[in-house]
């Protein structure tokens, strides 16, 4: 067999040009497939890592995916809020370890503004229980101070001390609809996390109340701008409502009981969700697109394998004489079969190996950039089991594809005998 393998190798080397093209087709298709797969795994991992350490998220009754979307992903908006007394009630529950309220609804140049308490930075975790870290500056203390996510700082070119004017609602700032009389100052910039935190402007809950003084009717009171900052600071700025509450429990074991009790709360109707469950639910929606993408890339691999088949089939006629020579010197029809199957297998194997190399080099080059910019770690950049399986699968498919021309050559070599008809 090794004799045939070396023949197959020499035969391929003799047709370097066309073999190289086929090899490239296979390599690119494999690289595409693995790239999609790695991006997919990375995305899923990143997605699942958006929030951790929080056992329950409480908000007004809505769909669990919806609550997750607006409280964690800052997408869409809450249909109703939770009243402050209810927040206090929940925070005071004996099974609750900590409760962090958040208040959403304003934005700054396309980035969501979130009012919360300083506790948020202690309790909100992402990835494998990673803390939010300040890259620069400090947490907000004063009323009009803001801590911004990494993306906000990068895209708006903000540094410590940059002034910012929040706008009411979620649209772009246009004068008259904004809170331009209540400018904020950037006091802290968070390190990238690869989560929606990067796109969030964090201020205190009181700040949210403060900028809405004079907005009680839902629209801006013409007199609102006349209220001075000093006057506002003298007000009781305790919020009347919050958008959602992140909860940590004293004992994880009570999670289901606590959830049920909150869901069946006798006072204000509430809804509590388990983040990991809601994340899984949300992912199952995106999984369809993800699978479609994967299916497409598998088809691309199939095209690559078919190109191996094509290149061998087209060479078959001109190699008829070669087969007769091999037969004459003692090759059995099985040898002829093996020769062609091995050629296909070699191209498949080398192409897949090249593709794996290609994607890993690419990831090694691009990975650190992506990680630095977006905080997304392209995990599994080392050769993983998927690479091995892909290598084996592509080689196997190529061997199978090679069996078709091999069978044709096998039949011909029986029929041709020693005489070579041209």
């Amino acid at each position, binding site marked *: 067999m090794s*004799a045939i393998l070396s023949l197959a190798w*020499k035969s391929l080397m*003799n047709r370097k040009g066309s073999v190289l093209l086929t090899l490239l087709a296979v390599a690119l298709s494999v690289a595409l497939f693995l790239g999609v797969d790695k991006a997919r795994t990375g995305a899923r991992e990143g997605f699942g890592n958006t929030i951790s350490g929080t056992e329950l998220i409480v908000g007004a009754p809505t769909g669990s995916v919806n609550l997750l979307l607006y409280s964690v992903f800052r997408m869409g908006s809450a249909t109703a809020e939770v009243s402050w007394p209810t927040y206090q009630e929940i925070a005071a529950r004996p099974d609750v370890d900590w409760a962090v309220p958040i208040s959403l609804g304003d934005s700054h140049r396309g980035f969501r503004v979130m009012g919360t308490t300083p506790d948020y930075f202690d309790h909100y975790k992402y990835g494998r229980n990673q803390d939010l870290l300040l890259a620069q500056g400090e947490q907000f203390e004063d009323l009009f101070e803001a801590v911004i996510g990494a993306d906000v700082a990068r895209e708006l070119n903000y540094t410590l001390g940059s002034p910012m004017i929040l706008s009411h609602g979620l649209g772009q700032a246009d004068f008259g609809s904004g809170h331009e009389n209540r400018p904020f100052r950037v006091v802290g910039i968070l390190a990238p996390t690869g989560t929606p935190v990067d796109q969030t402007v964090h201020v205190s809950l009181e700040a949210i109340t403060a900028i809405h003084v004079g907005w009680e009717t839902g629209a801006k009171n013409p007199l609102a701008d006349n209220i001075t900052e000093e006057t506002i600071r003298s007000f009781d700025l305790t919020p009347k409502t919050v958008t959602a509450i992140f909860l940590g429990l004293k004992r994880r074991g009570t999670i289901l009981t606590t959830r049920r009790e909150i869901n069946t709360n006798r006072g204000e109707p509430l809804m509590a969700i388990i983040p990991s469950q809601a994340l899984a639910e949300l992912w199952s929606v995106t999984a369809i697109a993800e699978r479609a993408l994967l299916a497409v890339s598998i088809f691309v691999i199939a095209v690559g394998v078919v190109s191996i088949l094509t290149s061998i089939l087209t060479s078959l006629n001109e190699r008829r004489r070669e087969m007769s*020579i*091999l037969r*004459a010197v*003692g090759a059995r029809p099985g*040898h002829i079969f093996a020769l062609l199957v091995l050629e296909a297998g070699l191209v498949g194997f080398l192409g897949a190996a090249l593709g794996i190399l290609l994607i890993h080099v690419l990831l090694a080059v691009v990975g650190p950039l992506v990680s630095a910019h977006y905080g997304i770690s392209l995990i599994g950049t080392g050769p993983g089991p998927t690479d091995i399986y892909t290598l084996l699968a592509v080689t196997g498919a190529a061997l199978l594809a090679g069996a078709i021309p091999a069978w044709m050559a096998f039949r011909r070599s029986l029929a041709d*005998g*020693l005489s070579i008809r041209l």
Partner: protein
Amino acid sequence: MAEPVVSISDLRFAWTTGEDVLDIAAFRLEAGERLFLRGASGSGKSTLLGIIAGVLEAGSGQVNVLGQNLSSLKPAARDRLRADHLGVIFQMFNLVPYLSVVGNVTLPLRFSPQRRAAISGEEDDEARRLLARLGLTDETLLTRRVSDLSVGQQQRVAAARALIGGPEIVIADEPTSALDADARDRFIELLSEEARRTDAALLFVSHDASLASHFDRSVDLGEINRVGVTA
């Protein structure tokens, strides 16, 4: 005298549909004999060679090669017999394009441990020795692509391949038809000299009766084949 290396009796052969191509009452190739088989094109000589080489199966009759009855052998055993005991030279395009000159000569050794064992030294050295005997000594020639060789050079490489490992039978099917007269005579001389040296029986087939003088014995296929020449 020893047993004949090839003996045929009452051989009949027909392609799947149609009339007999061959009907041979008796044919013998003695050990070490250099036999000239004359046959016009279409006389069935390629078919006969295919049968002797074990690639085609006789319809009926006896074909013995080295004492083995071919029709009683399985295809794989016939392939083995050919690999171990037969060297074949074709009319032209004898060489595998992706192998070197030396690689082409040593090709039969890949399929026959027996012929490999018959070589005392290195395979490549043996190939070079044979090539040198056949007048191919230029080292630069040996490293060239086989497709860059002249037809005469290619045929000599093919002869070296047929002879390597000392097979008992060498079959040459019109090996000189693409050569000019000088090259042709020289080729036949070298081939039969080497065949004699290795004690191989040489079965040389050609339509050109004038070549018969180079050989021990001459047989006209048109005479032994009772089907007759149709072309």
